[in-house]
């Protein structure tokens, strides 16, 4: 097993709330890793710290053998971590194709001079980026909407588009924040297939999910957060029988999936 990401003692505090305390976990290359926990357990905060949206108070992330920069989202993406959002965040006024092309920004090189003169390198890069974006739309199954303004897409298609956009950054690790939220059973099933395909094509997946059934069926390993602490980390079958986990979920009131 090659270790892709290692979180060491991550802590983050907001005012009086300790959102994360001493969270350590490690994700292996090629696996689908689930991060679950009741509402407010710190899952999204973990995501935000990992991707550089927030700076951790303590701890560090080792990714592909080197420490990740802190508080610099664009450098984290450059290193190979892409994310989606719990409440979909697309570029509303761009078409689906353009959204994915925007995702490819960081892997493109054209500068103002090249764009102004439209030299051969710029033209070729733009053509390849367009083709690549279309391929990614096809990959997630929405290529027929390439020219549709993204805000006019259906909810499920917007989710797929967001994943395609994240893949356009050419990540090694794809971090999905509750991708199944608001989906019906059919859509969730399709999503599951998509995530498995992505993994089989060599991208490691970190999955935050409320839908425990989806996580248990899909993930190779699962970590459980509760009140900002990691209370379990193992294969789904073990985690499912963990008393602390059952306690967290049953004690945590309304979560009885």
């Amino acid at each position: 097993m090659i270790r892709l990401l290692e979180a060491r003692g991550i802590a983050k505090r907001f005012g009086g709330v300790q959102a994360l305390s001493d969270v350590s976990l490690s994700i292996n290359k090629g696996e689908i890793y689930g991060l679950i926990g009741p509402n407010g357990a710190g899952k999204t905060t973990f995501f935000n710290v990992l991707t550089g949206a927030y700076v951790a108070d303590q701890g560090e992330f080792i990714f592909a053998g080197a420490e990740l920069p802190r508080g610099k989202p664009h450098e984290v993406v450059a290193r190979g971590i892409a994310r989606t959002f719990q409440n979909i965040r697309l570029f509303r006024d761009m078409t689906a194709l353009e959204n994915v092309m925007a995702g490819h920004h960081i892997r493109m090189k054209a500068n103002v001079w090249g764009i102004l003169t439209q030299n051969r390198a710029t033209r070729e890069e733009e053509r390849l980026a367009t083709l690549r974006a279309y391929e990614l739309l096809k990959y997630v199954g929405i290529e027929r909407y390439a020219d549709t303004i993204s805000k006019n897409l259906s909810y499920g298609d917007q989710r797929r588009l967001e994943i395609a956009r994240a893949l356009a950054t050419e990540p090694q690790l794809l971090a999905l924040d509750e991708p199944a939220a608001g989906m019906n059973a059919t859509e969730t099933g399709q999503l599951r297939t998509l995530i498995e395909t992505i993994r089989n094509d060599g991208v490691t997946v970190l999955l935050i999910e409320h839908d425990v059934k989806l996580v248990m069926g899909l993930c190779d390993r699962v970590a459980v957060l509760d009140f900002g602490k990691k209370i379990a980390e193992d294969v789904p079958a073990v985690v499912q029988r963990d008393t602390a986990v059952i306690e967290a979920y049953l004690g945590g009131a309304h979560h009885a999936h």
Partner: protein
Amino acid sequence: METLLQQIVNGLVVGSVYSLVALGYTMVYGILGLINFAHGDVMMIGALVALQAILFAQKMWPSLGPLALVGIGLVVSIPTCMLLGYVVERTAYRRLRNAPRLAPLITAIGVSFLLQTLAMIIWGRGYHSFPQLISTVPMQPIEGVFVTPVQITTLLVSAGLMAALLLVVNKTPLGRAMRATAENHRVASLMGVDANKIIAITFIIGSALAAIAGVMVASNYGIAHYTMGFLPGLKAFTAAVLGGIGNIGGAMLGGIVLGLVESIGAGYIETWSFGFLNSSYQDIFAFIILGAVLIFRPTGLLGERVADRA
């Protein structure tokens, strides 16, 4: 030493006016998150309407004393501005409450220029001399330091109004509703607060304060003019930001601090810059403070850092 004391006196007077206008900005920003660009122009309208009323009263009842005339000016201009504030909120801003962020601000800029243009149509382009009904004869409480009765009045009135506003906001049901709305419109609505009404009232109170500030500014300088709202308005906004926007106590503090910095700065800028800059550069202090506060301490002097959790 006298110069410094003198600058402090001047700074306090100007600053108290900034504070008064800043309250209007900060209340609206606190509730709507909107920079009501037109607020300074409401102040200008207040001054010009008061001027019109005073001139009319002087003609009709020549025997009236100066205090009665100021009273008439205020009695006419305060309701006018309250109405104006309400109309602007109702017609221009309310429909944009859920629009993209920049839309209300662009509208506010438009309203500001519209008010200036209307004032230009009604009162013309010239400077009007504002009758100095409260004495401007300087007194010398300390040797070498001058202060005029109108300055003292300005300070006292501002202090009184601010105290009254603090009372309203902190001790009355209306104040509680305002604070709840500022916290969160939707939740306030669910708790039975009519957010639309509270927002309208906020505009009305702010406009009333602006009307009074307008009369005080015009009385101090003896001049009223259709552009007189712009610069004080901008500076008052700076004061609000300096104190911590959305924070009423902060607006007061910010106004006083800005007034002092400006006045002391203008007095010494020539010395500090080795004669290169002079007091014509007074206005840049406000802009530099504005930029510096927003960049380095956007929560202002009294604001607290709110964790922006997603």
